[in-house]
Structure formats: C-alpha cells, structure tokens
C-alpha cells in the first residue's frame, strides 16, 4: 500500500496514538457512569473519539489521491535545535539546576546566553551584533520586568548576590 498523503498519514498516526494513550491512561482512574461521572469518564470518551478521528485521517491518507503526495518535507533541524536549546538554557541559567548543583546565574547572564544561542538559529550570525542585541535586551528587560513590573527574578548569579 502506498501513502497518498504523507502529512495526513503522520498526523493521523499522531492523533490515533495520542488518543489511545489518553484513553488508556483514563482507564486507570474511576470511570463511573453517566449519572455519576468519575474522573476517567470524559477523558476516556475524548481519547476514543480522538483515536477514531486519527484512524479516519490515516485511512484517508492511504486511499484519497493527492496531486503531489503532500510530503512532510525536510526538517529545519538547525532553527529547531537552537531555538529550543536557547529556551532551555534560559531556564538553566536563570534558576540553576539544583539536581546537579549548577548554581543560578540570574536574569542578566540568562539573557546573554539565550540571545547568543538563539541567534545562531538564523542564516547570518554576527557575534558583535548579537552582543549589542544582548545588552539592549538586558537593559530593556531590567527596566520593564524588574523596575516597572517588579517581578521576582534572581537578577545576578546567586554566588555574587548571596
């Protein structure tokens, strides 16, 4: 059997698997009856519907012709990696990782780290420009979030500010 629409095939697969997983998970809670719905009732119902919808999409992707096969296309690994890595780095630098004893570095260091890593996701990466951008973003964030909105952030590394 040939896949007629790659996008539909994989999205159908995704919906079926996720729906089945939610449905299966729901059975570990008390399902109850219509008049006395337990915590598992609604998720079980929805999980079944989602799995069914996924199956229909999957079926259609194998049967209904599409002009170009609707390929998923190449993955943009580079932006995907740097954007997500920059985001995670922000969390690590800001709050530290107590599980491995990495200290919290605070907001400013986190902004520099994130801006530099995220900038690498683009086609052009100019180091000097990125540093300038980091400085501007640090100043803006400090003014907006710390001074104006008074959000509770660790601003400086924990070993400096104590």
């Amino acid at each position: 059997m040939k896949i007629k629409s790659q996008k539909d095939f994989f999205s159908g697969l995704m919906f079926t698997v996720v729906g089945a997983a939610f449905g299966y998970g729901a059975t570990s809670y008390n399902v109850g009856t219509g008049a006395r719905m337990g915590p598992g009732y609604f998720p079980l119902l929805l999980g079944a519907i989602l799995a069914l919808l996924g199956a229909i999409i999957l079926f259609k992707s194998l049967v209904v012709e599409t002009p170009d096969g609707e390929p998923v296309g190449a993955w943009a690994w580079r932006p995907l990696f740097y954007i997500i890595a920059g985001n995670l780095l922000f969390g690590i630098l800001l709050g530290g990782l107590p599980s491995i004893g990495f200290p919290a570095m605070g907001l400013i260091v986190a902004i520099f780290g994130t801006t530099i890593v995220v900038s690498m996701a683009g086609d052009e990466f100019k180091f000097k420009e990125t540093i300038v951008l980091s400085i501007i973003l640090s100043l803006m964030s400090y003014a907006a979030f710390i001074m104006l909105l008074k959000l509770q952030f660790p601003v400086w590394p924990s070993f400096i500010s104590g």
Partner: protein
Amino acid sequence: MDLINNLSLGFGVAFTFQNLIYGFIGCLLGTLIGVLPGIGPVATIAMLLPATYALPPIAALIMLAGIYYGAQYGGSTTAILVNLPGESSSVVTVIDGYQMARKGRAGPALAAAGLGSFFAGCVGTLILAAFAAPLTEVAFKFGPAEYFSLMILGLIGAVVLASGSLLKAVAMIVLGLLLGLVGTDVNSGVARFSFDIPELTDGIGFITIAMGVFGYGEIIANLSQPEDKREVFTGKVTGLFPTQEDFKNMIPAVLRGTAIGSMLGILPGGGALLAAFAAYTIEKKTKLRPGEVPFGQGNIRGVAAPESANNAGAQTSFIPLLTLGIPPNAVMALMVGAMTIHNIQPGPQVMTSNPELFWGLIASMWIGNAMLIILNLPLIGMWIKLLTVPYRWLFPAIVLFCAIGVYSTNNNTFDIWLVGAFGVIGYLFIKLGVEPAPLLLGFILGPMMEENLRRALLLSRGDWTVFVTRGLSASLLAAAAVLLIVVLLPSVKSKREEAFVEE
C-alpha cells in the same frame, strides 16, 4: 435609555488616566506587532499576560484588547508597503494594496485601510454594545445542557469556518480538550495525566501552550524558509489623502466590508481573518465601474473592504466572549485566560457583577480606534522605519520574552521546560499541516465542557437524550449539525477549498 447610561458608565471608566494609558500601550503594541511580520496577536497576548498580573483587571483587559484590534491596523501597513501580510488577516490586502504602492499610490491605500478600519471599528463597537444586553438575557436561560451544546456549536463553528482539513481541525479540538483535562480533577481531587510531576497537578498553563505552539513553532517555521528579499516602499509615501474618485469607490466597499465583518465576527470561528477573505471575495464579484482599475492591479476597494471587515470582525468577536463566556477564536481564548487570572468568570454574569469592566472595555475600544487612526496615519513614517528592522534581531527577542513570560507566571523553571516541549510540538503541527488554533480553543473549553456535561447528566440521571429533549439545547445542536452538513456538501466543499487557496 439603558444603552446610553451604560455607555456613559463605560466612558467614565475608560477615560480615567490609567486606563487611557494602558489602552494606548495596547494599541501601540498591537500596531507594532501588526506591522512586524512573523509575530501575531496570539503570541503577543500570551507573552504579555503574565505582565498584567499586577494591573487592575480592567486596565489589563483594555490593554490586551487593544493589542488584538491594533494588530488589524498595523497588518495593513506591511501588506501595502512590503507585499507581506503583517498579520494573517491582511493576507488579501496584499493583493491590491501592494499593487497600489507599486503605482505610487501607497498613500491613498494606507488611508483607505486606516479610515475603513476606523469606521468599521466604531460600528463594530456599537454593535457590541447594542447586542450585549439582549444576548446576556438569553444566556441566563442556559442550563448545563445548553452550555454543553453551545460549546459544541462553538467548536464546530470554529473549525467549519477555518481553513484546511475539517477532520484534522476537529481532531485538534479533541486533543486540546484532552490537554485541558491534565491536572487535578475538581470533583474527585484526582490528579489526571500528571505523571506524578507536582507542577502538572495544577494543569498545563495555557500561556505555556500558546507561546510554545504559536511563538516558538512559528519562529522555527519562519527560519526554515530563506529570507524574502523585501522591497520596501519607504520614500514613496506621499499624498496620503485619497482623491474624490477614490472616496466614491471605497465608501460602498467600506460599508459592505463592515457589514460582512460584523456578522462573521459574531459567529464562532469567525473573527478577523475570515471576515477579510469574505469581504474581498464579495468585492471581486461586484461589477467594476467604468474606468476603474481591475482587481489584482491596485483597486482601492480591494484594500478598503477587507481592512474594514477584519477590524469589524475583531470588534464583534468579543460578543460571544463577553455575553456567553465562549471564546470564538484563539485570541478570545486567551482573553478568557486573562479574565480568569483576574478572578473574573467569563459569562453572562460579567455584565451585572462587573458593569464597570464590561462597559469600560467596550468604551475603551472606541477610544482605542480613535487612537489607532492617529497612530497609523499621521505617524506612518515611524512604522515604515520599523519595517527595516531585520528578522534576525527580532526572533531572539521574541524567544527571550516568551521565556521570561512563562517563567514569571509561576516563578518556576518547570514551565520553561514545558514551553520548549510545546515549541517542538508546534513545529511538528506546522510540518504535518494541522492548524494549532482549534487546539487552543479546545484547551480553554475542556474543563468547562466536562463540568457542564457532568452537571447535565447528573440532573438527567445519566440520560443522554437531555441534550435533544430540551428545546434550546436541541436547536443549538441542530445548528451545529447543519453547519457540518453544509460544509460537507460537495458543492460547498469545493467552494470552501477554492476560497482558501486563493490567497
């Protein structure tokens, strides 16, 4: 006259110094992100939600609303000058707007968009004010069965009118509903799908989902395409004012666009994008006057109609939110979140329990539209300069503000890990061609639907027929069924696909 009294109460609230300032900030930010391609109101509102914790609820809502309709103004500027839709709802404005700019008529195009939007915004606000009270009356007759059916209608409507595959959109809603159930069940106290992670017992924050899927997902997708060579008509905006001939052409178009936009905005799933599409399609169907420029070559009606329609739609899409508590689109879903953050339960009781908020918000929209016309026409030069800012400076800032935003909601790094995961999922959605907006709607409505289903079945002792034996509920479900059937009719189906391919 109740309406007059209510509106004067509203203007009293909206004209306080603080609310004017926040309204202005909202409109300014809205225009800013509207002008900038690659960032939309959903991601922006999600980013700014945490920042509104400290504000009084009315100021917060005025600002967030301003972002949404402000974006409709800003989007047209980019469409006309750069041949890129600054906002998805300006997709059709690109067609004729850019052609006008190429012929040296960028000024009149911008003016048509601005004036049309202003007129439509004022009418939309009036409709909102006039319809809110009677609709609220109806909403008070609703029991749990009716609410459940209404949500079904809302969700079905949302996907019927959206573009793309209907099946996939329905599946995304169901996925959203499921994600909305993660966390502690209010009735039994059982933590569902939380995998013993303490942070997940509070549920997934909708800010986290919105930023991950709409913010990160979009950025990754944008970066995977080579940067377009942008041709910006910066120096050429002279003579803003349209000629008499232009006015003759655009006034009926603005009126039609406003009417269509106001109607489509109220419908679930409507709002700005669909309104713009419909308005442009209708303009194209009307006969050209002798000597008029054909569509696609810079007809001013092709700018005026969709721009009026998207602004009217943005305005009237607040009606289902404010009267029924049901969000008709993703932005309104975020507004539900904003209201809940400030301990306001969206729904018909808002008008009676928080009249200052209700009417203040409506009045602020009129003031906001007035501010926007000033921001967008005389100050157009400022926005044009902004268009020269390269994307490689923007996306690191967007990622950073998203990360700061999610962290500050709970002061917890767990949310940062979660937003990263949803970023990957958001990109996956884009690759698989599934639209994320229905997911967010489902996510917001999930707990509400479960609660109303539970109550309705409890009252009927487990009898599912309660949804069809109660007249109001039955007619809501019937409307949903009719919508589905109409869309699935072969003739409508091909038309629908055609309409969305046209972009």
